[in-house]
């Protein structure tokens, strides 16, 4: 059913919740991250189960700074605080867009406010609503209402293409991850096989600076990425994934890039439990995963027992896009790191769900 939500809860509260969600995964990156603090971040569930959750998003221009200090212009999504215009400098476009996190059964109302100079829209592959390829005119807005019935890892992205320019909106940065949690805490899909202790959302994409410099005149035949990103960052700025031995780390891969990517983890196998948020009948173990453009994969990597403190397990593009422009090391690479400063709390990021 295509529910049209009407109940709107306080935008300020939602904004606070979203902001906390946004830092949830990067928080793992902080070696000093204190689980107790993380637990204080728990009231992300601002609304009761099955409630209506409203989010206001801006689409606007921004910039992205890469590890070699190259700055590219972007178009990105941002959370719009109540009573603040998208054009306000305090609203910063993000690449990827903010992590939208919901609970299965929620009714979602998302309003996109378009602060770009061209038409913009959002499509939500895998969600139960008619895809919108029209969207809002510059300065306008468009609302999307749907119910998130199925837990999992999803992509949201621009659905707009123009008659006069190339299909560049997604490449410019108009994409983001969307996670729907089951009502059972600590599980990706409400099944024991999907139980995890830690999680990381890994949004894969590429940057061709020429496209970002000239989005309205760019020739797609010239698309030639020079930077390869995980969640908007290239190594060495990528966020490490911190965990303890024997913990199950849920890796939520979201390929928002224009290219297909093959990702590898060293030191362990990963068990693939879902693709495009569809639970696999028979999970399989693999080292290297082909993740096509637009697809999401959920795998669980279990850190081996007995690993010494500080052990790092590389997670990287096996197509070996491991440079920033021509400088190694860089690119689509991070590490799952046994961080002895972590206390063995299980699944602290997902508690309270």
């Amino acid at each position: 059913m295509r529910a049209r939500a009407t109940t709107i809860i306080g935008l300020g509260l939602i904004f606070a919740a979203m902001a906390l969600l946004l830092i949830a995964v990067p928080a793992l990156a902080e070696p000093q991250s204190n689980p107790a603090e993380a637990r204080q971040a728990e009231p992300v569930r601002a609304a009761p189960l099955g409630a209506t959750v409203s989010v206001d998003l801006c689409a606007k221009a921004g910039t992205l700074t890469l590890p070699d200090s190259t700055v590219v212009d972007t178009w990105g999504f941002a959370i719009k605080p109540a009573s603040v215009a998208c054009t306000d400098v305090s609203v910063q476009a993000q690449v990827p867009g903010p992590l939208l996190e919901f609970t299965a059964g929620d009714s979602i109302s998302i309003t996109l406010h378009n602060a770009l100079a061209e038409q913009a829209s959002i499509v939500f592959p895998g969600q139960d609503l008619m895809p919108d390829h029209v969207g809002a005119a510059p300065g306008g807005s468009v609302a999307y209402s749907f119910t998130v019935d199925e837990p999992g890892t999803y992509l949201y992205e621009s659905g707009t293409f123009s008659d006069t320019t190339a299909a560049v909106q997604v490449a410019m940065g108009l994409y983001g991850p969307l996670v729907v949690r089951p009502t059972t805490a600590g599980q990706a899909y409400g099944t024991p096989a999907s139980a995890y202790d830690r999680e990381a959302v890994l949004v894969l994409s590429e940057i061709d600076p020429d496209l970002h410099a000239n989005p309205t005149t760019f020739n797609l035949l010239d698309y030639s990425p020079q930077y390869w990103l995980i969640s908007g960052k290239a190594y060495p700025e990528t966020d490490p994934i911190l965990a303890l031995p024997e913990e199950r780390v849920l890796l939520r891969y979201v390929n928002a890039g224009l290219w297909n990517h093959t990702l590898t983890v060293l030191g362990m196998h990963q068990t693939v439990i879902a693709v495009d948020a569809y639970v696999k009948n028979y999970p399989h173990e693999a080292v290297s995963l082909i993740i096509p453009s637009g697809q999401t994969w959920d795998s669980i990597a279990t850190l081996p027992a007995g690993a010494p403190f500080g052990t790092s397990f590389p997670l990287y593009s096996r197509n070996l896009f491991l440079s920033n422009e021509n400088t190694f090391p860089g690119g689509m690479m991070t590490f799952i790191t046994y961080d002895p400063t972590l206390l063995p709390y299980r699944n602290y990021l997902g508690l309270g769900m």
Partner: protein
Amino acid sequence: MEHDRVTRKLRRRDFLTLAGGSALTVLAGGALYKTLGEPGTSLAAPAPAPASIGPDVQIHLAVTDGYASLPGRVGDQTLYVFGFMEVPWASTPQDLASTYKGNVQIVSPIIALDEGQEFHLKLSNLGLAVRPDLDDAHTVHWHGFPNVIAVFDGVPMQSFAVPVGKSFTYAYVTRDPGTFIYHCHFEDVEHVQMLMIGSVYVRPVQNEGNGGSIPKARLAGGASSAPLGYTYNDGLPPTDPLSTAYDREFSLLLTEIDERPHDLLEAVQEFVWAYYEPQYWTINGRAYPDTVKPNNDPSLPHQPISSLVQANAGDRVLLRLAHLGYQQHAMEVVGIPLKVVGHDANLLRGPGGADLSYWTNVVYVAPSTTRDCLFTAPAFDAGAPVESDAYGDYNVYWLQNRNYNRQTNNGQPGLGGMVSEVRVYNGGLPAQTAGHQTFPLLSPPFP
């Protein structure tokens, strides 16, 4: 000719008599004419063909050159191509040259067969109108055909090829249902890129039904309430969640086109294939917006096979995705998840019966693989953007390659490439009576 292998084959005369036998076999291109009838007689069933003796199905493909049209090409938009086209069985290359030479269709005809048939495919090499100096031989390679013997595999080094002015007949017994492809294997990097490519599939014997819970498919003469067909011998009634039954069937053959080898060949020069870097991405040899024109659209006289998917809300649709380009593609129907039930002509079921089919939004399609994808057309949504044609209102869902850098025609502004539409009608679309029908039904422009 040998006719004594009847006992080793699954004979299906009743189906052939009812459905027209080999007349049904080539679904697009020349034989659309035979299958679908003249304009205005749109839904008339094809006339029954006499039950054959000897081979169940005979198809004669002629090889020659010609021109295709690509949006975004400079000048008159035409591109030099090679291809296969269907011609009358009994004719010789010499008979055919005056009508067909230089007048090829791309992509090659869709060949639909039934499980258990003995299929004879005669290949005639007419030579090239534009490059008469280039006396390339050709072959047919049925890609994926299991347990093939060397002389029917169409690899020149491993048997032989067919020189200009000559013919050779390949023979196959269709023991395995599923979606395959065919292409020339002579200097294949060149001839495949020149678009000597086509879809061939084998429909399962389950289309005959089991007299009980599995009704005879409409393709086999079943009742109007029955599915058009079954993708595989799944052994399940159409109501079963794991059934591979479908109401509509579409064949989508992907490829990319690098115009440079085409232009160089036309200009008597050679291309270095390591530099392959296409400018066009096509479905059934058409790039968007040509993709959404129906079969046999008069504006595309040499590209008769549509890439448009049409269905009524609630219809179960089979997409036979196949790929004979050289890149890897991420295909999706935005807003409609796909259930992949077959890989490479194999039902996704483990040896012990494990269900290996899967749902997905994006289907990864690598060169020379085929994927059988089912979906149920969503409810018609009058509140969403609506378009309309002679069959009433419909919603549009984009069928596209998610590699957005490939959504272009030669780098020109605007949407192009491997993009088409799934149009979901509010019940007004006629039923398909054969695979890959698009509406309106049009007759082919030639010969």
